């Protein structure tokens, strides 16, 4: 960066070329009054307060004036003050000033300007006081918009446009009546505002303030507990209460940005319904007991059923250390590999498929590379809803003129920005991707040197393309061939191109094939192993990656070391001081099937709610009722916990130390911010106590740090990771042993993680979904998420504001289908599948194509997974929650 020397107020200083005079002054602690400048945003130059005198130019706005060599600047002079004083006074007199009652008091930029100018009552009295008052917008549950305090600096508008790319607000009306408005001047809650609160954090004058404005006494850096993005946050604590959240600007994932859940969804931590003491069910009622009583009860029951009659379900919400302990307990103490967790229901095909083709089942590249891609191909991911911070990266890429291809059966929000939108039928991803690859191969757009140098199996693979002529692909997918061709050309030629995918790809009975198709298209175009390329599965839970990494899977020990490999098993036997079961355990769905068949009699379930999250949920409930002993460990009495014999109160992320591994393999620290609520205990403590009740050795840890050390000693990809290093920031695995390994932002740069180092191109065929519509069940049900809730909403439904923004299940149905069925928007309907029925309100929208309806599974009142199919992918054993056949019925007595 070139530096220039300039003089400001007689002080000679240097500044980087490209900086503005205002920035150079501020960087050198020279204050120039300003209101509309914000370091993250394009300067607007509207407040006119940052006037300076530049020799040879006269009065100039400093936020728009780039520094130049030899420039001589004055920030204060009679000429400047003559205009600046009255310009500020015009603003101050018009500001509804009730400073002491304002959430921005002492942080207000207008106060800063007033201090600089020096307010004289007499001068203000010359100017007319405001008479008209704008109505205050109270519609948003998390923040208040008071236009009377708005100084119209436009920082919120630019934040919404430049940072969030939502464009929910803009200037409206003219002259003195100018205001910041949503489209149609509706209340914020009725606009497209996503309530992320970015504008609130930047508002300089108290016009946008959080409803909860208690300032924290101290702040604790930690990692967000919601999705797999893994945003860095600061929890603000006052007493023993979490009172605020703000984004960590130094965290490479979110750089300070947060979504609505991350910023405002923390009420669950101190919620009155938190479990605060262990419970034992006696005569059908839960009774509060001491930890000793609960542990004794568990100890005596578990000691009776070691071996494969026992199973544990671990939790992707828990830390790496806790998952490690739970699988260790299951294997070393209970003598079985029957351990699994919800990764089975989301990204099992990723783990299986990518392990086959690339040798490693995780995001190949990092989140912050997406913004620099030339093409982003988002298939089966509603990114702005499910991974909002990664959604920002897509918008960032587009700002840099990247092409965006969206493939999704639904017209999701991302389509607003897409260059090509491929609206394929649910479950036809293999056909769509093979069709695109057919175009790439036929038109010679593949990367032959990459294929030759780094892959194998191209011939067999390309032979399998022969059955995917575009006529057939068009017929299967319902996508016009010209769109397929355009998408293929863009993806193959706009390099670097990155693929993002999520559950739209995996939750199918052919989910592994879908993943392989994605891996194939990246490989034949050489879009892998380089910056801003790759195959990037977006993982759902905050620590689903880590739960897999630390071995909460039936077939592998930590670090994906196979249970069936004798050498591996010997390593763990010697480390843990016991002999280990050599046969792989049952998977998630299989465990419940085995429980149903009474082959498994005892279940230890940590932080999961399968009654709502598992496909064909009624079957799961029936199975649970057959258990002989059922322990649930959770923070709330979830729908599943109600069925337990013993319930153990665990703590939230805010009350414990540990690590989460985010979707891009970044291991990040979770720091304890408050003491556990009531008698709740960290999961690691609980699991250790249970183990000790069973006289197990190797469960004495004084701090999670020691658990991580044990993980590192047994897991090659975590070998270089320690709490000491993590203090300085996250590390992306593989991070092999050694003090200084920087972690691995990009996988497969030199060789693939397969045995011979080559990636495998896999021939594929199209397989229809297991359950397709017929006369009886003529519609396809697919599932999705709401921006405002997370998973079975155990946490988010405890946040009042999120329930205001989305309070119930909605069945999205296309207007065509709605008309045919005589269903009105908002009408309560019954959705029926072969497995059950639920009622929910209809939302008539063309987001869903004709023939497809869509529901979330956040709401216990409308448990969508009662409907879904548990047809499994033969390799990954994931149930097909994205496609099942249903019909919709109007309720009896509904008026046509």
């Amino acid at each position, binding site marked *: 960066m070139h530096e220039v020397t300039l003089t400001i107020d007689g002080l000679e200083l240097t500044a980087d070329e490209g900086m503005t005079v205002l920035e150079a002054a501020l960087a050198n602690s020279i204050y120039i009054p300003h209101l509309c400048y914000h370091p993250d945003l394009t300067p*607007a130059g509207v407040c*006119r307060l940052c006037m300076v005198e530049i020799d040879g130019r006269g009065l100039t*706005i400093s936020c*728009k004036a780039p520094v130049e060599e030899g420039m001589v600047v004055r920030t204060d002079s009679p000429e400047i003050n003559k205009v600046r004083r009255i310009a500020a006074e015009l603003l101050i007199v018009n500001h509804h000033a009730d400073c002491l009652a304002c959430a921005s008091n002492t942080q207000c930029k207008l106060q800063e300007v007033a201090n600089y100018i020096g307010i004289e009552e007499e001068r203000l009295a010359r100017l007319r006081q405001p008479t008209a008052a704008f109505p205050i917008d109270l519609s948003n549950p998390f923040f208040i918009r008071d236009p009377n305090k708005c100084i119209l600096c*436009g920082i919120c508008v630019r934040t919404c446009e430049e940072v969030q790319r939502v464009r929910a607000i803009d200037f409206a009306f003219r002259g003195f009546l*100018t205001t910041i408005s949503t489209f149609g001047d509706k209340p914020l809650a009725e606009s497209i505002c996503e309530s992320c609160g970015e504008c609130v954090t930047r508002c300089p004058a108290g016009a946008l303030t959080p409803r909860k404005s208690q300032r924290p006494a101290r702040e604790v850096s930690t990692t967000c507990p919601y999705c797999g993005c893994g945003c860095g946050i600061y929890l603000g604590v006052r007493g023993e209460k979490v009172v605020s959240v703000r984004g960590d600007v130094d965290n490479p994932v979110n750089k300070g940005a947060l979504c609505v859940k991350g910023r405002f969804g923390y009420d669950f931590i101190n919620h009155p319904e938190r479990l605060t003491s262990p419970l034992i069910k006696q005569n059908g009622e839960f009774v509060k007991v001491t930890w000793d009583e609960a542990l004794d009860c568990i100890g005596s029951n578990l000691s009776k059923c070691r071996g494969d009659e026992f199973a544990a379900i671990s939790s992707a919400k828990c830390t790496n250390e806790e998952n490690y302990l739970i699988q260790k307990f299951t294997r070393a103490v209970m003598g079985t590999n029957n351990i699994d967790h919800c990764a089975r229901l989301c990204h099992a095909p990723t783990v299986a498929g990518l392990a086959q083709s690339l040798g490693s089942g995780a995001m190949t590249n990092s989140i912050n590379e997406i913004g620099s891609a030339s093409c982003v191909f988002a298939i089966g991911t509603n990114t702005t809803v499910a991974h909002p911070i990664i959604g920002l990266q897509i918008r960032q890429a587009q700002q840099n003129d990247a092409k965006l291809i969206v493939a999704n059966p639904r017209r999701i929000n991302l389509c607003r920005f897409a260059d090509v939108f491929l609206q394929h039928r649910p479950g036809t991803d293999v056909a769509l991707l093979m069709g695109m690859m057919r175009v790439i191969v036929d038109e010679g757009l593949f990367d032959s040197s990459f294929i030759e140098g780094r892959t194998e199996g191209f011939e067999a693979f390309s032979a399998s393309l022969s059955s995917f002529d575009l006529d057939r692909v068009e017929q299967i997918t319902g996508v016009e061939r010209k769109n397929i061709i355009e998408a293929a050309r863009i993806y193959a030629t706009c390099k670097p191109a990155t693929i993002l995918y999520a559950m739209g790809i995996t939750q199918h009975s052919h989910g592994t094939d879908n993943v392989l198709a994605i891996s194939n298209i990246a490989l034949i175009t050489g879009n892998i192993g380089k910056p801003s390329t790759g195959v990037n599965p977006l993982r759902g839970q905050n620590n689903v990656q880590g739960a897999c990494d630390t071995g909460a899977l039936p077939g592998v020990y930590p670090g994906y070391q196979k249970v069936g490999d004798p050498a591996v098993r010997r390593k763990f036997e010697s480390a843990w001081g016991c002999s280990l079961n050599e046969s792989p355990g049952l998977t998630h769905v299989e465990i419940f099937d085995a429980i149903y068949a009474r082959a498994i009699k005892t279940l230890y379930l940590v932080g999961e709610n399968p009654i709502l999250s598992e496909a064909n949920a009624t079957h799961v409930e029936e199975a649970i009722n057959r258990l002989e002993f059922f322990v649930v460990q959770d923070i709330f009495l979830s729908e599943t916990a109600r069925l337990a014999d013993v319930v153990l109160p665990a703590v939230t992320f805010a009350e414990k130390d540990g690590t989460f591994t985010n979707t891009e393999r970044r291991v990040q620290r979770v720091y304890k911010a408050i003491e556990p609520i009531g008698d709740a205990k960290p999961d690691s403590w609980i699991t250790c106590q249970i183990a000790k009740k069973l006289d197990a050795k190797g469960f004495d840890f004084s701090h999670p740090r020691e658990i991580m050390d044990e993980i590192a000693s047994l897991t090659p990809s975590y070998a270089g990771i320690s709490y000491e290093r993590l203090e300085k920031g996250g590390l992306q695995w593989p991070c092999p042993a050694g003090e200084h390994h920087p972690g691995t932002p990009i996988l497969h740069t030199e060789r693939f993680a397969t045995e011979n180092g080559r990636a495998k191109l896999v021939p594929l065929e199209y397989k229809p979904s297991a359950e397709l519509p017929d006369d009886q069940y003529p519609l396809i049900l697919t599932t999705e998420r709401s921006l405002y809730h997370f998973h079975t909403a155990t946490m988010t439904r405890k946040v009042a504001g999120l329930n205001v923004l989305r309070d119930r299940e909605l069945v999205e149905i296309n207007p065509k289908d709605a008309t045919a069925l005589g269903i009105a928007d908002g009408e309560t309907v019954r959705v029926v599948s072969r497995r059950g029925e639920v009622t929910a309100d209809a939302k008539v929208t063309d987001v869903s194509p004709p023939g497809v309806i869509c529901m979330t599974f956040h709401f216990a009142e409308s448990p969508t997974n009662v409907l879904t199919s548990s047809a499994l992918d033969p390799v990954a054993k994931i149930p097909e929650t994205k496609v099942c056949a249903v019909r919709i019925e109007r309720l009896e007595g509904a008026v046509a």
Partner: protein
Amino acid sequence: MREKLNSIDHFEALQDRLVSEWDRDVPTIVIPAGTCGRAAGADELIHATQQEITSRKLDGRIRLRITGCHGLCEMEPCVLIEPEGTIYPKIDPTEMARIVEAVARGEVLEDLLSQDPETGARIQKQKDLPFLKKQVRTILGRNEMLDPMRIEDYVRSGGYSAMAKVLARGAPAAVVEDVKASGLRGRGGAGFPTGRKWELLAKQPSDGGKFLVCNADEGDPGAYMDRSVLEGNPHSIVEGMIIGAYGTGATEGVIYVRNEYPLAVEHADIALQQARELGLLGEHILGTDFCFDISLVRGAGAFVCGEETALIRSIEGKIGEPRQRPPFPVEKGIDNKPTAINNVETWANIPIIIAQGAQQFAEIGTANNSGTKVFSLVGKIRNTGLVEVPMGTTIREIVHDIGGGPAGNARIKAVQTGGPSGGCIPAEMFDLPIDYDSLVEAGSIMGSGGMIVMDEDTCMVDVARYFMNFLKDESCGKCFTCRKGTQRMYEILDDIAKGSGTLEQLDLLEELAHVVKDTAMCGLGQTAPNPVLSTLRYFRDEYVEHIRKRRCPAGVCKELITYSINENCVGCQACVRACPVGAVKGREKEQHSIDAEKCIKCGLCRNVCKFEAVDVT
């Protein structure tokens, strides 16, 4: 469908053919039917003329040409007869039968001719009208020669020859040199030398494309020069832009026209289509490698969109708000591509410069202000209309010689130039030559050419308040000082007009005016205080009288005046009937009186009184 011309030779052949086929001696009835003409009844005249020609079986023997506005507002609807140049003003459709008959016979209808206001003598020929005598109608004069919906009319009258000339010459840089040598300055108001702007555009890298824009967002109240040109001669704009594109390497053109000008939109659209059909616009113009096309973007009625950066945002589909310059549009304009914006009248001058040669163009006007300028002359003046004069003509010549002096008995005391952001120039300064620099020196601006004449019945405080009211509403509201400053200035002016102003407020008014002028981001804000500053400069007494004596000398500010009836009243009851609120009382043949409590000071009584019996004090 027209046959596409594939070479310059083809174009010249077409032009020659059109000229040779044209018989100048066929009697032609010309009816100006711009928006103004139509409002005055031109459509009915056209209809009647067509019927008369058909029913008298004169098709082919008498031609009818429907043109744009000729600028003779005071005479609308009027009829011009060619080749003699006879002008019939204010014609009723029922007269058309006689006129058609007379044209067929080669006769003149004396009784329908206009009269000299002084001598009462009949004036037959248009060129002899006093209104036109001192004008040099290089631009406006072409409107009467062509039907704006027929490209052939334009081509026949020499149109597109300038374009063909530069294409044949083949030296783009020479075009810029010509425009520089002509001394043409932007007719949008600021007077930036057009050639220099083009030179800057030509120097910009052309890889991503460059834009030329015709700014037809004419928003000043009382100004309609650009509308008349775009309606009446759209091809001159198109030709100007094509020449500009050739000279600067621009790849795309945009005509940004306000949607309130539906006829201009329609005519421009037709012109673009016809030019494309003939191969004068689009890919490979006249078979050369030169490609350029123009699209039409309609503005949505925000005054501020006439400002360059706001106009660009509006074209981009965003909210029309200005942004800070630099970067200037010529560096980063539409979609961040280099963009040069010129107004309608500037573009209309381009073909003239090329056709006549820069030197000849520069001979008109004065040294730094070459060429002519079109003004719309309105207000308290006898001859309202569009006036085109050489730069450097004095205000007096325009107001008294062309405009014919005051409309009524009151003395003219000022003209306001430059639209809402302009200023007032007092009668004492009417010898001021009109050019960019003198007007600025006098505290006003040229603006796009509005010229409002004010007489002693005009209150200067009210004028300033009127314009400030307009500007505070039209301020985009983005930049702080303009948004708040214009509002506060308006409030003070309103206070003064209502008699509640103070001398301290007058100081504050001046202080605010200077702050807004010095700190506003865009041209709107920077010039918004002009009406205040110029009226304060020349008519401070009127302000002081409003404040000190609570009196409006012009009798305009309602709160400061009372209506009363004097002894001239004959008791005719006209005012009693006219009063909308029943404030005037009185029996027939007795002196009436006005109930001051009820009176809303609308002035209707005074308007209807034939005996000068209503006083305003």
